[in-house]
C-alpha cells in the first residue's frame, strides 16, 4: 500500500514483520516500533540466520513484539519469558534466543528470573524496553518508575526507590549491559549486533516514551516531545559504573555500553563439568531432532 508509483523498493524492516498484522496496536508516539527497526537492522548487519532465531516475549506492550515479528516467536506468560527462553536454548543449543520484553515484565514479576539468568550467564539476548510504567494495563507504577512520578496506583506521586536495571543485571553477572533510548536508533542497533556476537547474558535497556500514560500523566508532552527530551538529557557514558546510571524524573539519562566482559556462558560451563566428570559417557545435547520427534504417520 504505497503511495509512490512504480516503487519496487522494500522497507528494510518489512521482511521481519508479519505484514498481515499491520497496523500494530502501539499508540502514536510509542517507541516500541522504533526499537523493532533497530532490532531488524541488527539482524541484517550481523547476518544471523533468521531460521535460527527464537524470540520470546512476556506480557505487556513490549510483549506484543513477538506477535509482530516474522520469526519463531513465543508470547508467554507475564514475567516468564526468560525461563521459557532458557528451556528453548537448553533443548536446542543452536538457537539464537532473544527475549524482548518490558520493564515491568522483566524486573517486577520476572525479576527473579532476570537475576538468575544473569547469574548463570545463560546465552540470551535480552532487549528490555523501559517506558518506566506498566503501560498495557493502564499506567501503574513499575519498579523502574522514577520517584515523584504520577501513576494510576500512585496518584499522589511515587515514593519508592526505583531499580537501576543496568546495575541490577551487572551485579547479577551479565556480560553485556547497555542502555540507549529510542532516540539512539543506530547505537541501539549496534548494541544488539554486539550482543548477537557475544555468548552469554546480554541486557540492553531501551528507554522509550509511553505518551498515553507515563508522559501524559506527568505532563511531559507527547512522543515527539519525549524523543527531543531524550536527545537533550542523554549523555553517552560508555564504560560507566552501572551504580551511577540510575534514572530520575527530570535528570540526566546516562546511555552507552556499560559492561562488556568475558565470562564463560552456562552451556560452556555445563559441558566442561560433564566432560570432566563423565568423560566419554557424556552425550551432549545435539539440537538435532531425535528419532521420536519425527512423526512416522506422515
Amino acid at each position, binding site marked *: *500500500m*504505497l*503511495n*509512490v508509483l512504480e*516503487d519496487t*523498493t522494500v*522497507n*528494510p*524492516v*518489512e521482511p521481519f*514483520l508479519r505484514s498481515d498484522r*499491520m*497496523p*500494530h496496536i*502501539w*499508540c*502514536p*508516539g*510509542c*517507541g*516500541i*516500533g*522504533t526499537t*523493532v*527497526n*533497530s532490532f531488524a*537492522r541488527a539482524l541484517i548487519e550481523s547476518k544471523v540466520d533468521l531460521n535460527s532465531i527464537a524470540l520470546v516475549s512476556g506480557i505487556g506492550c513490549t510483549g506484543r513484539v513477538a506477535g509482530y515479528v516474522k520469526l519463531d516467536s513465543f508470547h508467554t506468560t507475564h514475567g516468564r519469558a526468560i525461563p521459557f527462553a532458557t528451556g528453548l536454548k537448553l533443548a536446542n543449543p543452536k538457537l539464537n534466543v532473544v527475549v524482548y520484553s518490558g520493564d515491568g515484565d522483566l524486573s517486577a514479576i520476572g525479576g527473579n528470573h532476570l537475576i538468575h539468568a544473569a547469574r548463570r550467564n545463560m546465552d540470551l539476548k535480552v532487549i528490555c524496553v523501559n517506558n518506566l510504567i506498566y503501560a498495557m494495563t493502564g499506567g501503574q507504577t513499575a519498579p523502574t518508575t522514577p520517584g515523584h512520578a504520577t501513576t494510576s496506583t500512585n496518584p499522589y506521586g511515587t515514593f519508592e526507590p526505583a531499580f537501576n536495571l543496568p546495575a541490577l543485571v551487572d551485579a547479577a553477572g551479565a556480560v553485556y549491559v547497555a542502555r540507549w533510548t*529510542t532516540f539512539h*536508533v*543506530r547505537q541501539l*542497533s549496534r548494541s544488539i549486533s554486539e550482543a548477537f556476537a557475544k555468548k552469554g547474558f546480554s541486557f540492553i535497556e531501551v528507554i522509550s516514551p509511553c505518551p498515553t500514560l507515563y508522559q501524559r500523566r506527568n505532563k511531559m508532552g*507527547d*512522543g*515527539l516531545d519525549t*524523543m*527531543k527530551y531524550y536527545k537533550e538529557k542523554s549523555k553517552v557514558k560508555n564504560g560507566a559504573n552501572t551504580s551511577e546510571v540510575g534514572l530520575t524524573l527530570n535528570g540526566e539519562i546516562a546511555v552507552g555500553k556499560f559492561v562488556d566482559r568475558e565470562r564463560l556462558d552456562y552451556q560452556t560451563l555445563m559441558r566442561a563439568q560433564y566432560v570432566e566428570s563423565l568423560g566419554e559417557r557424556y552425550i551432549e545435547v545435539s539440537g538435532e531432532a531425535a528419532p521420536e520427534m519425527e512423526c512416522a504417520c506422515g
Partner: protein
Amino acid sequence: MAKGRVSIVVERCKACGFCVEFCPTHVLALSSAFNSKGYHPPHVVHPEKCSGCDLCGMYCPDFAIYGTKAPADKRPEAAAAKPAGGEK
C-alpha cells in the same frame, strides 16, 4: 536528481512526527491529508534534499516510511563512477 527517495505507507501512519523531526535535511512535513484512521501522514516537501539515509525509516514506530538510495546510475556522482556491481 536526489540521492534518495522516501516511500510512505499512508495507512500505517499515526502522525507521531518522528520522521519530520529527525530527517537531517528536512525533507518531510505532516500533510493536511487524512488517512482512513484520521491521522495526517507526512509528505515530501523537499524531495531534492533526500539522501536516502533512511533515518525516517529507523525512527518510524509504525513502519510507515522508509528512505532508499536512488539506483547508482541515476545518482549525480555516478556520472564519473565505474559501473556499480549491484544496488545495496
